[in-house]
């Protein structure tokens, strides 16, 4: 498969948030300010990329030779949990400001379905190592992009006279629906 097709497909056409419904929690939770959204995007990018590559290696070099593929979920989640712990420690040391503003959402990357979802996708799509890298990079760039666009829209929504009951999450979800509609148009890219 063409690497370009994999990348574009992962980043835009099959965007992880808007068409695969993965990673909705941070999408709604950490998208109120654009700098937070970018910080979250960067952290998730790092975790998704490393986790997918590690998951691929573990699956093909440990699980398959020993014929214990059913351990997939448990093995992957352990990799992800330790990676997140690592990112948390690094951020705490080098960027305490970002660490503080991400708050509870940092440990929640462990339970970000986008990470486990991508790791699982890599296995079910039977990618090789290079394809895995390109795919996970595409996915995480798509994630960061949508997070950023959505957060800038939400910053403006704060100023808008939305009716009291629809203020906050309901209007954000409806905005997401319109964004998903726009991303449909990108289907012709590949």
């Amino acid at each position, binding site marked *: 498969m063409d690497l370009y097709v994999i990348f574009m497909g992962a980043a835009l056409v099959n965007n992880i948030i808007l068409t*695969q419904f993965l990673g909705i929690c941070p999408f*709604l939770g950490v998208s109120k300010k654009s700098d937070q959204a970018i910080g979250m995007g960067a952290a998730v990018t790092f975790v998704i990329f490393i986790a997918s590559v590690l998951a691929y290696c573990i699956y093909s070099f440990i699980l398959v030779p020993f014929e214990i593929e059913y351990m997939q979920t448990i093995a992957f989640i352990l990799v992800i949990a330790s990676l997140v712990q690592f990112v948390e420690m690094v951020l705490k040391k080098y960027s305490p400001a970002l660490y503080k503003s991400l708050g509870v959402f940092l440990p929640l990357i462990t*339970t970000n379905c986008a990470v486990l979802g991508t790791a699982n996708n890599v296995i079910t799509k039977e990618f090789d190592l290079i394809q895995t890298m390109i795919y996970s990079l595409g996915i995480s760039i798509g994630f960061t992009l949508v997070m950023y666009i959505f957060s800038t829209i939400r910053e403006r929504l704060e100023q808008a006279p939305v009716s009291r*009951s629809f203020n906050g999450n309901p209007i954000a*979800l*409806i905005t*997401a629906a319109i964004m*998903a509609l726009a991303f449909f148009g990108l289907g012709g890219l590949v």
Partner: protein
Amino acid sequence: MKTNSLFNIFTTGIFKENPIFVLFLGMCPALGVTTSVTNAIGMGVGVIFVLLMSNVIISLIRNIVMEEIRIPVFIVIIASLVTLLEMFMKAYTLDLYNSMKVFIPLITVNCIILGRAEAFASKNGPVKSAVDGVGMGIGFMIGLLAISFFRELLGTGAIMGVQIIPVAFTIPIFTTAVGAFLTLGVLTGVMMVYQNYKKDNKEKLEKAQEAKSEVA
């Protein structure tokens, strides 16, 4: 205190802290598998099972596990339960398994399960945790059913295979991502309208009573 009674714990999960409409936890399956009511029921039952078991197990071991490593321990327990569920579904309900394949391993990372483990089961006894698990699970399932009902009805015109709206009048976009976000957004909005209405009434009543007592 009355708020600690088992019945209250049970209903909290269903109404006051409904995972989907109030807590906004477990959004991914709520949007991903709700294309049909059948899928929603399958997912709901799966989540109730995992949530109940994980809450009970975690509350039983809550005093043994060290504070620092509790998250990895919890997540491994949840992952094992999900693997169990996956094997079970593959063996007995293959059709259902195939129609929501991607989302079954993802129950592991459903925020609602780890969220309840952390917020409730690690602080309360096994009986209370079991009740909380079932309550939250049912609340989650109600949310799924509500979303999938509208999506399936408007998108395909049928509910569980029974055609209600003629195909010519359906809105296929409701079966896609757009419909998922839109349905959830409007439903939460409507929930808020109702809650605000109740709050306003209560405030009005309180004000009226205050005025009365002042006069008296």
